[in-house]
C-alpha cells in the first residue's frame, strides 16, 4: 500500500484548503532565519494556486505510487529527508528567493528514483526510463540556463521558476541510491 505517497498528496490538499495553514507552513526566508525551521520541510507542500497544486500532483502521484510499490523503504525515506534537502538547498544557494512552494522538487526526485529503480532491476523497456531521465534533465538544464520553464507555465506571472528545487530533489534521489550501494 503506497501510504506515504497518498499521505503526501493528502497533506498538500489539506494545506491548500486552508490559507492560514499555507501562511504558517510556506517557505519564507526571513521567518526561517528567525527560527521557524519547520518551513524548510513543510514549504514543499504549499501551493500558490489550484493549477500549481494539480499539475504537481499529476506527476507526484503516479511516480510516487509506482516507486513506493517497487522500493517502499527507499521511497518513504525519500519523502522524509528530501524536503529538508530541497528546502536547505534553496535557503543556502538562492539568497534572492524570499518565498517558495510546490511539490515539483519531490516529484522530480521521485521520477529519478523510479527510473533508476526500473533500470537497475533490468526492466525490458529501459529506453523509456532513460527517455524520462533525459526529458527531466533537459527541463532542468533549460530552466537553469534560460531562467524560464520548459514545458510548463505558471498561471500567475508573478511566480518565478525555482529550478534549484528540481536539482535538489534529483540530488536527494541519487543520494538515497548512492548510500544504499555504499552499504
Amino acid at each position, binding site marked *: 500500500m503506497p501510504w506515504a505517497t497518498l499521505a503526501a498528496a493528502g497533506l498538500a490538499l489539506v494545506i491548500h484548503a486552508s490559507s492560514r495553514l499555507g*501562511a504558517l507552513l510556506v517557505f519564507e526566508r526571513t521567518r526561517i532565519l528567525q527560527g521557524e525551521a519547520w518551513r524548510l520541510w513543510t514549504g514543499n507542500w504549499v*501551493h*500558490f494556486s489550484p*493549477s*500549481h497544486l494539480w*499539475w*504537481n500532483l*499529476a*506527476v507526484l502521484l503516479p511516480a510516487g505510487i509506482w516507486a513506493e510499490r517497487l522500493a517502499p523503504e527507499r521511497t518513504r525515506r525519500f519523502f522524509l529527508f528530501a524536503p529538508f534537502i530541497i528546502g536547505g538547498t*534553496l535557503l543556502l544557494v*538562492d*539568497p*534572492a*528567493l*524570499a*518565498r*517558495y*512552494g*510546490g*511539490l*515539483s*522538487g519531490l*516529484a*522530480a526526485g521521485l521520477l529519478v528514483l523510479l527510473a533508476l529503480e526500473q533500470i537497475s532491476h533490468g526492466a525490458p*523497456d529501459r529506453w*523509456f526510463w532513460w*527517455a*524520462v531521465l533525459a*526529458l527531466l534533465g533537459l*527541463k532542468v538544464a533549460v530552466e537553469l540556463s534560460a531562467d524560464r*520553464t*520548459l*514545458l*510548463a*507555465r*505558471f*498561471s*500567475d*506571472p*508573478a*511566480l*518565478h*521558476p*525555482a*529550478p534549484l*528545487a*528540481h536539482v535538489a530533489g534529483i540530488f536527494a534521489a541519487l543520494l538515497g541510491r548512492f548510500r544504499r550501494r555504499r552499504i
Partner: protein
Amino acid sequence: MVLGFVTALLCAGCAFMFNGPRKTDRSSSVVNYLYPGQTNPLPLTTIPVLRLPLRVGVAFVPSGDVRDNYSPAGITEEQKMVLMQRVAAEFKGYPFIQSIELVPSTYLRRAGGFDNLDQVRGLLGVDVIALLAYDQVQFTNENFFSLTYWTIVGAYIFQGNKNDTHTLMEAAVYDIASRHLLFRAPGSSQVQASTAAVYLNQNLHRDSAKGFDDATGELIRNLKAQLEAFKDRVKQSPGEVQIEHRPGYTGGGTFEGGFLAVMALLLLVRRSGRRS
C-alpha cells in the same frame, strides 16, 4: 410691538431651520491631478517594466473645493488613512507585493502631475501607485414631519429631514516610471437616512463616513477582479508589460501540461511497443 418682536424672532429662527433643499459636493480627480491643464496628453511609448515583488504606494489625490458653506471640506486625513489601511490590508498577502506604503496627503500637491509622483517614488521607493479619488454628493430635503419644527421641540424629535448621500470612488493603478495606467476599478455607494433638524449636520457627517466605507468595500472587490484580469492580460499579451524579478521574489516549481503531454506520448509508445 412685543407681538411683532416675537413674530420676527420666530421667523428668523424658522428661517434658520427651514433652509430648503441643499446639496454638498466634495470631490477629487485623478485626471486633474495627473494632467493639469492638458486636454490631449501625449501617447505613451515605453513599455512598463514591473520588477516583482512590487513596492506599492496608496494615496488619495488632492481634493477640489467643497461647494457648500455648511459642511467642512472633504474627507479628513484620519478617514483617508483608515480607508487606505483597509485597501492595503486586502492586498498585503499577495506574493508579488513586497510592501504597501500609505502616502500622506501632504506628499501630494494639487495638480502635481507625474513630476510629483516621481518625487514620491524617490522619497518612499515605490514602483507602482494606486491613486484614490472620490466624488461624494449629499442632498438633504425636508419632508412632511418638518412642519413640527415650528414647535421647536419637534426639531429634536421628528425626523423631518431626508438625507441622500451618493459616493463614487475610483482607484487608478499607475506604473510611475513608464507613466502607464495598469488598471483601474470603481466603487460606489448610496446612503439614505432621515434625521431631526437638530442632528442634521451630525448625521450628514455619519452618512458621509458610511458612504466612503461602503464605497471602499465595493472598490476593494472590483480592484481584486481587475487585478486578476490584468494578470490574464499580461499572460496573453506579454509584449504589453515586461515582468522582471528582483531579490525577494516568490518561486515555485511546476510541471504542467507540456511535460505531462510528452510523458503521455512516451507511455503510449512504450505500451504499443509492449503489445507488438
